[in-house]
């Protein structure tokens, strides 16, 4: 039922249909980005694609919102 993705090299379980943001939050990873100016930790906030706090990169692609990106088996997620 569950499959695995990696986040900065660390394995994280995900379920079909889950977003990467939901999988991270469920795994107890709630902060995965720091802000440019203050280095403040950020993770999910709005959860529905509005706030852009949860930015990630999947398989080396451009930054996208973790709360909208559907997790797929083997996805390699990198954070900043």
């Amino acid at each position, binding site marked *: 039922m569950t499959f695995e993705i990696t986040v900065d090299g660390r394995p994280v379980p995900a*379920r079909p249909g*889950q*977003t990467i943001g*939901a999988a991270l939050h469920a795994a107890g990873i709630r902060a995965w980005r720091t*802000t440019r100016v*203050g280095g403040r930790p950020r993770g999910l906030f709005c959860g*529905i694609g509005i706030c*852009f706090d949860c930015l990630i990169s999947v398989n080396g692609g451009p930054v996208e919102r973790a709360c909208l990106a*559907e997790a797929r088996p083997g996805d390699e997620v990198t954070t900043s």
Partner: protein
Amino acid sequence: MTVYDLAVVGGGPAGVAGALTAAQRGLRVVLVDSGVRPGGQYFRHRDVPDEPATKGFERFARQVRALEDRADVMTRRQVWAVTREDDGFTVHCLGGAAVRSRRLLIATGAHDRPLPFPGWDLPGVLTAGGAQALLKGHGVVAGRRVVVAGTGPFLLPVAAGLAAAGAEVPGVYEANGGLGLARHPLLALDKAGEAAGYLAALARRRVPYRTRHAVVAAHGDRELEAVTVARLDRDWNVLSARRVPCDTLATGYGFVPQLDLGVQLGCATRPDADGTPVLSVDAAQRTTVPGVWAAGEPTGVGGRHLAEIEGRVAGLSIAAARGTAPATRAAGVPDVLLRRRTRMRAFAAALLAAYPVKDGWRGWLRDDTVVCRCEEVPLAGIREARELGATDARSAKLLSRAGMGWCQGRVCAYPVACLAGGGQAAPRRPIAQPVTLADLAELTLEEPHD
């Protein structure tokens, strides 16, 4: 390229009802939605059989199945712009897809309206809608110990859902006077009963529901560890405060309708009962731009029942308008539907009046409290902009950079406008989603063919 009779943007209750109504009357319809499946923010449904269904979901699911038989339903498509053509519109989606249509129905819904307070950008602080999306959309309980705070009836299903899913909910804190609605003549409508049902569910689980209380600060090193809960006076000034340990906060102070596409096309806006800008529509749900209709939250926040009725009225009006310029104000729409819409709008207005945002929240902020999360602009930055002469959100933005980041002010436009001292202005975003240069190039290439 196929030119549809109608393109609907948004697959929530309003969009699906509008698309289905028009398709049933013989129009060639396409519905475009950003989600994995239709449903919008209200009907978030996973393919899990043992999940208790959201109220009204079966009915919505039947509508979606009927729609899929009669129309093209495009999911996972984020619309970033709609452009006008000689004979209609082009709806541009991220990744290069585009659809052409003669008419457009904007049914883009709404998102949470959070208020800033010290620590609100700590991980673990979520919007109420975000916590609900995690639970209903992904089966993830937002935290082990979750405080729910804000204003409005939406806090109740969020708290009840979290408690039922096994989260410990130390309290639900409603900043307004609570069930002021219980004394309202519109009590007869079933929503007040729904609220009473949630309150009973919370009481069964011994979850305290406190009115005139709010979370005024969040604490933690790198993640949320506790919140300050304050007792408020009627203007939301802090009377007394205490610390409540928790790992998660779900917070929201009403909703912001998503107007970007309507504003792009030049549709007129009006202030809703609480000053929130919404798209102006006539009795037939037509905006001020010919060929463009709107339904649901973009015309005024009113919930899923009103959204569905508005969608149906729009669908009927669009079908009646086919070929000729519409002669009457709401041609082809049964009176009973219009009467129901009037009743539900009165209820929505009563809710807005019962759950306002009071000015006292400004006193919860400190100089260093982040107001714009994207550009990390603190309260002091907004104040500086005011001292430099900014008297509205737009000039405050130019001077402080608040609202200029990734989210383009979707999160902070409301508090910034309040703090700058001007009224709420409709958003002016030439693009509704961050786009790549390839998307923009696509748009340029397409223009000559009209």
